[in-house]
């Protein structure tokens, strides 16, 4: 009995794969298998219901239905040209005979077909589909070896004594079944078979590959009976549910959520079981941040909080087992945590003996970047930069009182001092936080402490921003120093390589400017950064830094990041973003990237573009721009102001009059930041513009009149392109009012 469809599954048994790499490995495996099965016509009706699973020790793929055999296809195969296939007597030549033989037929069966290139021999052949099992035996090793891992290893030698296959960790077992039969294949020295292995501790066979399976249902049954929870979502749910159940024993206790930690445990295990442990409440005298980092970072424990949201002297560990009947596991985890907390307590006390400001000198010994010097030098630059940024803010009528300014500068000076504490050496992720906590312990002002505490934020696109102005200024100063410095010594990111995280740093700058609405420009920030480096060079530091490598390249880099931010993060349309970035008109090539202002302008453009007059007007602007560019090229038009006495048509006079009126209002609205209102007024120009183009030929034969009309259009363009360059707007065709 031959089934038309068969199930297929694959289990790659690997020594413990690093947990964080597993989801990516599964994606790759799925992609390679889907591609291979589809390309080989084994997907029923073109669709595959491929499922993947994984534990710490196995990668699994399962397809409930693939074709048992490739379909048989008939196709015409083209051969050599007719003229070389037959001799003068009409007998087949060697070319024809070989072609026939290759296709399993005789020359008399060959036909001649006419193609656009001429006449050729042709033969109809039937290609028998190969069985799925045969194709899979080739596909599986390819799919497995095609999985990407950041770093791979050798573990084995092949017969010639050369090191064999490479993978993330040694592959030890391979189950590959199709329609109940083993798919014969091998990866390195491991041959496929039908026996899987259970959980190391929870199966009777001690995790040895002795469990024979035939179908995927057998396979799941065998794993379930031998302590393996194959489905990651089942393990994830088990960890959460059991943790909640454990916490019910005490009133109001809650898990401090940590999605990353949950993912880690999901893939670090085959049978996770949470365990509730406690620690001596006296440790709660340590800062919560330190306790949580010790639990999470070092021990992979979930922290627990009480009903009031305060840290409770409890933790949740996740065991790779089914329980802790004797309490010996809990005892072990508590013992380790106690030792860790003792260490942290020792460090916290010892660190307290040296005040932050007395740590400045020792920053000489901590390298920031080989070409940019130590963290001492960086701190000096951050201090200068923070001062410049605050002055920049004040220059834009942003109120910063003198005390605040002095706090910010002082905080910038000391922001990196915690790098010399034992706690930060031990727990790098606490940088900044320890500085902030130490500042508080030393009774420095709260605004200094918070600024230092927050200045590494934001770490990602989703991360929170610093809470205070001081924190934001420090964060900006830190990032700008890194960006200007790295660009200046030739360390700008290339392609996918960005070892210093400069894209993320620039993204952080943009987010702070945009979301905290700080009236600072990118060019201003870059300029201030460059000034600080030039000054440092006069002091004999950062000798290889070059202004030319930093200034303009960095502005361009920011412009790119800004596009990304406005489009991908804020969701504005491509042309809206371009219109705002290109604003400034044709006369000036100098663009001021004031991020907060640009966000307001792009919001206004997005709002106004849905109104009736806007897109038609934008189309007219585009037209004006083209006319002027053309005139620059062919008539040497150089601009100038229009002279009203040279107008000889009513439409141009009235457009000019409308310009004067509208310009006044627009300038007033703009200066109070009312961009939507300003754009509405500009849009009201539409009837006058339309009339102008209806009645008037700009390129008048009289050069004086022509130039005057061009001047009018140029003035219009420049006068009204300061919020957005409308000529960048691409009218949406579906719009009913679309006059473009």
């Amino acid at each position, binding site marked *: 009995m031959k089934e038309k469809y068969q199930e297929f599954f694959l289990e790659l048994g690997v*020594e*413990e794969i*690093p*947990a*964080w790499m597993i989801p990516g490995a599964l994606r790759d495996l799925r992609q390679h298998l889907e591609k291979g099965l589809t390309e080989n016509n084994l997907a029923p009706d073109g669709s595959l219901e491929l499922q993947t699973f994984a534990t*710490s020790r196995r990668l699994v793929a399962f397809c409930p239905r693939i074709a048992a055999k490739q379909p048989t296809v008939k196709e015409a195969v083209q051969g050599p040209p007719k003229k070389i296939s037959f001799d003068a007597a009409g007998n087949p030549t060697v070319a024809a005979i070989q072609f026939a033989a290759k296709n399993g037929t005789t020359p008399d069966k060959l036909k001649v077909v006419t193609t656009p290139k001429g006449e050729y021999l042709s033969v109809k052949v039937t290609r028998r589909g190969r069985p799925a099992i045969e194709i899979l035996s080739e596909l599986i090793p390819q799919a497995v070896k095609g999985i990407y891992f950041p*770093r791979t*290893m*050798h*573990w*084995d*030698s092949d017969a010639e*004594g*050369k*090191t064999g296959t490479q993978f*993330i*960790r*040694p592959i*030890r077992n391979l189950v590959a079944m199709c329609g109940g039969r083993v798919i014969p294949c091998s990866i390195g020295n491991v041959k496929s078979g039908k026996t899987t292995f259970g959980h*190391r*501790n929870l199966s009777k066979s*001690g*995790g*040895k590959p002795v469990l024979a399976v035939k179908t995927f249902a057998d396979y799941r049954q065998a794993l379930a009976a031998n302590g393996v929870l194959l489905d990651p979502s089942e393990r994830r749910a088990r960890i959460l549910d059991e943790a909640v159940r454990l916490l019910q024993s005490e009133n109001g206790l809650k898990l401090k959520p940590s999605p990353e930690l949950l993912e880690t445990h999901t893939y*670090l*295990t085959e049978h996770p079981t949470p*365990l509730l442990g406690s620690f001596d409440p006296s440790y709660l005298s340590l800062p919560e941040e330190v306790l949580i980092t010790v639990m999470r970072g070092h*021990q992979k*424990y979930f922290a627990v909080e009480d009903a009031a949201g305060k840290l409770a002297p409890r933790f949740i*560990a996740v*065991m*790779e*087992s089914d329980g*802790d*009947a*004797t309490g*010996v*596991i809990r*005892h*072990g*985890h508590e*013992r*380790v*945590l*106690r*030792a860790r907390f*003792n*260490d942290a307590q*020792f460090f916290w006390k010892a660190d307290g003996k040296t005040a932050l400001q007395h740590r400045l000198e020792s920053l000489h*010994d*901590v*390298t920031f970047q*080989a070409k940019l010097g*130590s963290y001492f030098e960086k701190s000096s630059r951050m201090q200068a930069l923070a001062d410049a940024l605050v002055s920049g803010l004040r220059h834009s009528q942003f109120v910063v009182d003198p005390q605040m300014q002095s706090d910010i500068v002082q905080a910038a000076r000391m922001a990196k001092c915690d790098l010399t504490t034992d706690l930060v050496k031990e727990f790098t992720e606490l940088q900044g936080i320890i500085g902030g906590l130490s500042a508080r312990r030393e009774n420095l002002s709260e605004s200094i402490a918070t600024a230092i505490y927050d200045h590494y934020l934001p770490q990602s696109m989703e991360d929170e921003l610093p809470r205070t102005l001081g924190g934001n200024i420090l964060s900006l100063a830190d990032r700008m120093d890194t960006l200007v410095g790295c660009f200046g010594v030739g360390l700008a990111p290339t392609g996918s390589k960005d070892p210093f995280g400069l894209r993320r740093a620039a993204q952080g700058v943009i987010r702070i400017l945009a979301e905290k609405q700080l009236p600072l420009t990118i060019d201003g920030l870059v300029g201030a950064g460059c000034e600080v480096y030039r000054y440092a060079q006069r002091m004999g530091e950062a000798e290889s830094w070059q202004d030319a490598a930093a200034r303009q390249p960095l502005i361009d880099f920011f412009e790119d990041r800004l596009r990304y931010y406005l489009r991908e993060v804020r969701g504005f349309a491509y042309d809206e973003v371009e219109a705002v970035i290109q604003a400034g008109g044709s006369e000036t090539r100098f663009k001021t990237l004031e991020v907060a202002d640009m966000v307001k302008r792009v919001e206004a453009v997005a709002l106004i573009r849905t109104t009736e007059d806007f897109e038609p007007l934008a189309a007219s602007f585009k037209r004006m721009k083209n006319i002027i560019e053309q005139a620059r090229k062919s008539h040497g038009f150089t601009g100038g102001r229009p002279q009203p006495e040279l107008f000889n048509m009513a439409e141009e006079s009235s457009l000019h009059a409308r310009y004067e009126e509208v310009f006044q209002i627009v300038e007033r609205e703009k200066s109070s930041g009312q961009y939507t209102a300003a754009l509405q007024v500009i849009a009201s120009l539409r009837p006058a513009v339309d009339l102008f183009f209806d009645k008037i030929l700009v390129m008048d034969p009289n050069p004086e009149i022509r130039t005057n009309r061009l001047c009018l259009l140029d003035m219009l363009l420049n006068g009204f392109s300061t919020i957005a360059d409308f000529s960048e707007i691409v009218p949406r065709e579906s719009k009913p009012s679309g006059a473009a």
Partner: protein
Amino acid sequence: MISGKYIVESTFQIERKNKHLPANKKTSSSRTLQSLILDLSSYWAARGCILQQPFDMEVGAGTSSPETFLRALGPDPYRVAYVQPSRRPDDGRYGENPNRLYKHMQMQVILKPPPADIQDLYLQSLETLGIRLRDHDLKFEEDNWENPTLGAWGLGWQVMLDGLEITQFTYFQQCGGIDLNPISVELTYGIERIAAFLQDVDSVYSLRWNETTSYGQVRWREELQFSVYQFEMADVEMLWAQFNLYEKEARRLLTAFAEIKDDDVARGRFPVLPTYELVLKCSHLFNLLDSRGALSVTERAGIIGRVRQLACGVAAAYMQQPKIEIPQQRAHSGN
């Protein structure tokens, strides 16, 4: 094997003693530090490992011993186990920290090439120590190992037992900058940690070394005095002078080796092994200079590079050296 009888006796003693313990005491809690070493040694000896003695020079880890660093190079299979006292001057805490030591013990096991069931073999070694894995939480967590001064790296795990890191499990990939073939597996057991786990004590100094003597009695003064010496008193100029001397001598030898051409006898008897010991001297002196706070950042990076260069030079020479046949009567015992 002479020591075999002794192991059997000591194991017997422990088990006999257990019979008099209250039922709630774990069996393993009466295991002394030395019985732990003996049990691991006999376990791996029974699996074909040579039992080496600790290398008689200062090293930071068992990996630095030529029994690992040099034996991992080249094609010859090898299995060895040894305890290596490992000196990390920077970790010295004057005997005040219950978990950090200037000198700790590593049980180092090298299997070249690694058998396919190496993980199981390792886990059985834990069972031998009385750790019933069914009752515990054991995980292999990613931990990639790298030693920049030796030009060596490998991939593997830290083995976590109830939250405690008890072993480094590494598949060596490179040594002295040379790709290894075949691969060696390195198991590094933290002896003090495992003992503290088995005896359920919080301070390393209260470990029972044997039935009558504590770890503190054996080692505390050493921890104190070496901390004082290396943090406060070591003469920096003297350390630099020594470093430069040893480095110069190692360099001289490597250059001399490179200059011998087409003379297999001269190359075969060349002192490559002593050259490696000179490199280890440099490595330890670097550690002392570092803990003495005598190195600036740039100096530090520079010295790591210099030591690595020497280590890679030795590894290359070791690979190039023609292996002189060991005379018959020396290669075989008896007869």
